[in-house]
């Protein structure tokens, strides 16, 4: 569904220096595949999402989504950021409807679907509350519902659970998998956490920084639905050693230290 070919991105700083953010990234993502991008800060994971969403142009190379070259934002994408960034004056329900509103869709038609999504994510009964009355995890659930409302075939998540505590984070991961299993879509998921990357994904793309490069794409061959017990599985350990090895090998080679 998504093809990245030799994608390069170079930023220009205020002083006019050119900073390479991504270097020669080639990646194929199939329809309904769950792909996680893992790597240390500054490896261009978030940049990659923005490029695929058409929010910033590539410097060279090409990105195709369903055989169409991405040049500008296209509405078939849902985005979830690290922070929920809800609108504080809108109720939970109206925040979910925000995506349909901005897309210019008929809000009355999407109301029932919004309620359905809120039920699915355990937020039924909170639809008239304001965001500030909700916990961080609940706010992020609202943000996910907002992204899912127009039923996009592509979901981009930029460290969506990064600001949550460890327990909520794990719970949200499994919840996301449950929703994804019910309504399949292609997910591009950025994370710092190696266990999270492996537990969620069909495919883990390991990245190394300065400039951002794709070190390896690892096919995760673990049974679904995924469970907490998998983390004690020998295969899981092997995957996580492989990912860790790739990230740390990159560090040693550049002399960053451990």
């Amino acid at each position, binding site marked *: 569904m998504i093809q990245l070919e030799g994608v390069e991105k170079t930023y220009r700083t205020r002083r006019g220096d050119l900073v390479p953010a991504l270097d020669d990234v080639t990646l194929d993502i199939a329809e309904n595949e769950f792909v996680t991008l893992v790597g240390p800060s500054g490896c261009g994971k978030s940049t990659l999402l923005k490029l695929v969403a058409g*929010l910033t142009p590539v410097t060279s190379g090409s990105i195709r989504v369903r055989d169409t070259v991405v040049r500008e*934002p296209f*509405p078939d994408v849902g*985005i979830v950021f690290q922070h929920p*960034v809800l*609108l504080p004056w809108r109720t939970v329900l109206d925040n979910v409807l925000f*995506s349909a509103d*901005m*897309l210019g869709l008929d809000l009355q038609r999407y109301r029932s679907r919004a309620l359905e999504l809120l039920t699915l994510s355990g937020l039924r009964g909170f639809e008239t509350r304001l965001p*500030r009355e909700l916990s961080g995890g609940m706010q992020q659930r609202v943000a996910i519902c907002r992204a899912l409302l127009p039923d996009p075939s592509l979901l981009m998540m930029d460290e969506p659970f990064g600001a949550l505590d460890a327990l909520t984070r794990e719970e949200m991961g499994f919840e996301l998998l449950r929703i994804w299993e019910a309504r399949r879509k292609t997910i591009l998921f950025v994370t710092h956490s190696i266990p999270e990357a492996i537990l969620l994904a069909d495919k883990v793309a390991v990245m190394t920084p300065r400039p951002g490069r794709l070190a390896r794409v690892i096919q995760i061959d673990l049974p679904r639905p995924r469970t907490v017990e998998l983390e004690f599985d020998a295969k899981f350990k092997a995957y996580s050693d492989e990912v860790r090895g790739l990230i740390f090998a990159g560090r040693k080679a550049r002399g960053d230290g451990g």
Partner: protein
Amino acid sequence: MAGSLRSLSRHAVPAATLAAAIVVWELASHILRIPKFVMPAPSQIAAEAWEWRYRFLGHSWVTLYETLGGFALSIVVAVPLATLIVYSPWLRRALYPLIVLLQAVPKIAVAPVLLLVIGYGETSKVIVAFLVAFFPIVVDTATGLAATPPELLELSRSYRASAFKTFVKVRFPMALPFFFSGLKVAITLAVIGAVVGEFIGSDRGLGYVILSSTSYWKTELAFASMILLSLIAILLFGAVCLVERLVCPWLAPAAEE
């Protein structure tokens, strides 16, 4: 019980302090025999204010509508200006130095010239009030508009919403708390602007009453006008706070459990 005690102390303590200060003032002016034209006693001020009650109504009304006129004009000018500054880097470079320059000019120094050009009617006072009030609204609204979380702008862009739609549905509502803090500063400045305008030349308004009463040594009348002016400023400030609460109910602190 504890709650009612707390609310009692919150309102009763400042009220008692004020009452005590007035009593001390009253006693001091009698015991020390301070002449009325130097420092009138509260009772003398109150008596004079009562005497003037109908005339005060008219003068207060003049000052009030000069203030509100200048305030309204400053909103009408400042909000579009702030929007232009935030949306266009080119206009920001062109307009910002001008706005700062205008702010740096002492308005009291400009007022006589303004009155000379525009005339001694209420319009010139509205203009002076506008000149002192519009700067905080421009600066605060621009700051608020520029503070929109970048994620929300990216989200709007990914949904291909127009810049206008993003402004109406995201950026402006997001900037409302900043806009209102600008308004709160502006409304008190607008009162000062109107009074300064009246000082320079007028035959109506509370500023005029203060100026003319002092030239007749009627200090108690000047004091009554000052108190009335302060009351107007406090009421207007309170009104802005009330509107803020009505327009942005989500900003109110969460109710205590």
